């Protein structure tokens, strides 16, 4: 029992931290910075506990929660995402008279879900972790409750999110019944011994559909652009990386671990979905004049690149998972950075994020524009940024895996070229156009600047020194 509590310490710390945030807000209401400070302290404590557990393989809850390097990696990535969001959001929310306490607590609850998802070794824990991570996301999407766009995005996100959860859950329950065990590795063993039947086919179809909704793969992506465009900008940043990274952890655990013996069945489906996701995401992003909506479509394209790594991993190439995890880390920093930049441009309520609003920003606010250029170059995949190595690792893994994955690698490279057009167009507006007439008011502040800087450091550091991270990831997977 004592050991259980020690193993669960990071999870407990996050939840206690979330409750402490709410209590601190009750004691000193309307202080915008106190809840954020409490939340950041909880994040620091959790990070320390996770690093401390990095080498162990202790289990808790009857073996359904296993601590170790994989959880440490996912947890630390989640902590970075939540910390950057907490740094960039307060100024934006304060200008629109929305509180920060609820944001801090909700983000911490979602982080608890992500940690549980990373540590889960059975279907039940996996599902509870997933829901604990996504339900706070619905709340966050509707955070600006007096703004019709925010609530509209939230309602679409919620309805399609819970519909897909129900489909995924039905698939999980059927898989659990057919395999006769909830344990992920137990399912792989049961399936390998050849118990193929109609139930398994139903389970596979439902799980694939449900997961495709969760990662926003084409043709199950309809909720994404509206949910992302409607949400308050810093929250869109979080929604585009946090739940996405979590959903890919789910994919790794369900497909690459539990359903590995059925790889021959799901790889062709995943290849088609990935190709469609990359291509459609990029083509529609090309036509967007609103940068926020453009980034929403580009996040769909990034889902496609991440799926390339899943396909490679399914085909037996261990570097595929490492590629997915490295991509997830790189994507988290660069995409959150791009949204932090948009947040800075929207210091004034009602400020839009049209491409024309960005014109000439490089002259008036050179530092801000240079940071934006770093994030955009990384999203494009230009060396020596994180995005370049992320794409390289997943594509390389796909080439090594061979078979249908090779075709996918070619499609991914072609797509990277399409994506370059719309990312670089933003840079052209920033540096080579005359400034917009009513000049955009850029918000500055120590917290916003810190958030931008952390995202930039992450993007550049993962690009300049990718080897230690990728080695850490491979080590984490070996255990």
């Amino acid at each position, binding site marked *: 029992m004592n050991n259980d509590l020690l193993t669960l310490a990071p999870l407990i710390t996050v939840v206690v931290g979330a409750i402490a945030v709410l209590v601190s807000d009750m004691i000193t209401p309307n202080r915008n910075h106190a809840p954020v400070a409490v939340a950041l302290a909880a994040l620091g404590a959790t990070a320390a506990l996770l690093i401390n557990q990095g080498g162990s393989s202790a289990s808790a809850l009857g073996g359904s929660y296993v601590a170790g390097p994989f959880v440490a990696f996912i947890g630390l990535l989640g902590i970075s995402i939540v910390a950057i969001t907490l740094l960039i959001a307060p100024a934006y929310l304060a200008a629109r008279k929305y509180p920060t306490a609820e944001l801090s607590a909700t983000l911490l609850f979602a982080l608890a879900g992500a940690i549980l998802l990373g540590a889960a070794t059975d279907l*039940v824990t996996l*599902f*509870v972790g997933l*829901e604990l991570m996504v*339900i706070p996301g*619905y*709340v966050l999407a*509707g955070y600006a*409750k*007096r*703004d*019709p*766009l925010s*609530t*509209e*995005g*939230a*309602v*679409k996100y*919620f*309805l399609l999110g*819970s*519909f897909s*959860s*129900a*489909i995924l*859950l*039905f698939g999980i*329950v*059927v898989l*659990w*019944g057919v395999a*006769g*065990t*909830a344990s992920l590795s137990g399912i792989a063993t049961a399936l390998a011994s050849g118990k193929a039947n109609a139930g398994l086919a139903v389970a596979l179809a439902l799980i694939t559909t449900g997961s495709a909704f969760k990662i926003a793969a084409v043709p199950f992506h309809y909720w994404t*652009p*509206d949910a992302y*465009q*409607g949400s308050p900008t810093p929250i869109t940043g979080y929604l585009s990386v946090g739940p996405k990274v979590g959903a890919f952890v789910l994919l790794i655990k369900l497909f690459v671990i539990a359903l590995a013996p059925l790889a021959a069945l799901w790889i062709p489906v995943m290849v088609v979905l990935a190709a469609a996701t990359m291509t459609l995401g990029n083509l529609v992003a090309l036509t967007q004049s609103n940068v926020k*909506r453009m980034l929403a479509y580009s996040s769909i394209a990034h889902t496609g690149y991440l799926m390339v790594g899943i396909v490679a991993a399914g085909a037996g190439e261990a570097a595929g998972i490492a590629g997915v995890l490295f991509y997830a880390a790189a994507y988290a920093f660069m995409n959150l950075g791009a949204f932090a930049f948009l947040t800075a441009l929207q210091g004034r309520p009602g400020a839009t994020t049209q491409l024309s609003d960005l014109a000439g920003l490089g002259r008036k606010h050179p530092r801000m524009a240079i940071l934006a250029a770093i994030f955009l170059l990384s999203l494009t995949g230009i060396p020596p940024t994180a995005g370049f190595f992320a794409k390289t690792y997943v594509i390389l893994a796909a080439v090594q895996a061979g078979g249908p994955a090779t075709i996918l690698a070619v499609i991914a490279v072609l797509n990277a070229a399409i994506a370059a057009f719309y990312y670089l167009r933003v840079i052209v507006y920033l540096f080579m156009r005359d400034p917009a007439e009513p000049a955009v008011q850029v918000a500055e502040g120590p917290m916003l600047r810190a958030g931008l800087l952390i995202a930039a450091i992450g993007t550049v550091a993962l690009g300049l020194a990718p080897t230690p991270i990728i080695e850490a990831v491979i080590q984490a997977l070996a255990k």
Partner: protein
Amino acid sequence: MSQIAGHLEPYLVLSGMLFAIGSFGFLARRNAISMLMSIELMLNAVNLAALAFGAFIPSLAGQGAAFALLIIAVAAAEATVGLAIVIAIFRNRKTPLVDEYDTMRQ
């Protein structure tokens, strides 16, 4: 162990039918509250399947009820958040019909 009479298959067929009705309701209804109710029906179909597997498959004996209880808890959390969101948008738009939530369509 089996406290439910009969065979596993009829329960799964019933569960599948309930799930299909729920999915149809979600796709066919245009009222946000009806869609939420359809999702609840789908989750209850899943609960029935979980209980049936737990009752009839020896290696899962006793796990079915635990799984179903967790699903009920998750469904309750989802319904709470969902109703709150629907109330928030109703205050902004004065309509529960999702067809009319189309400000961002391009």
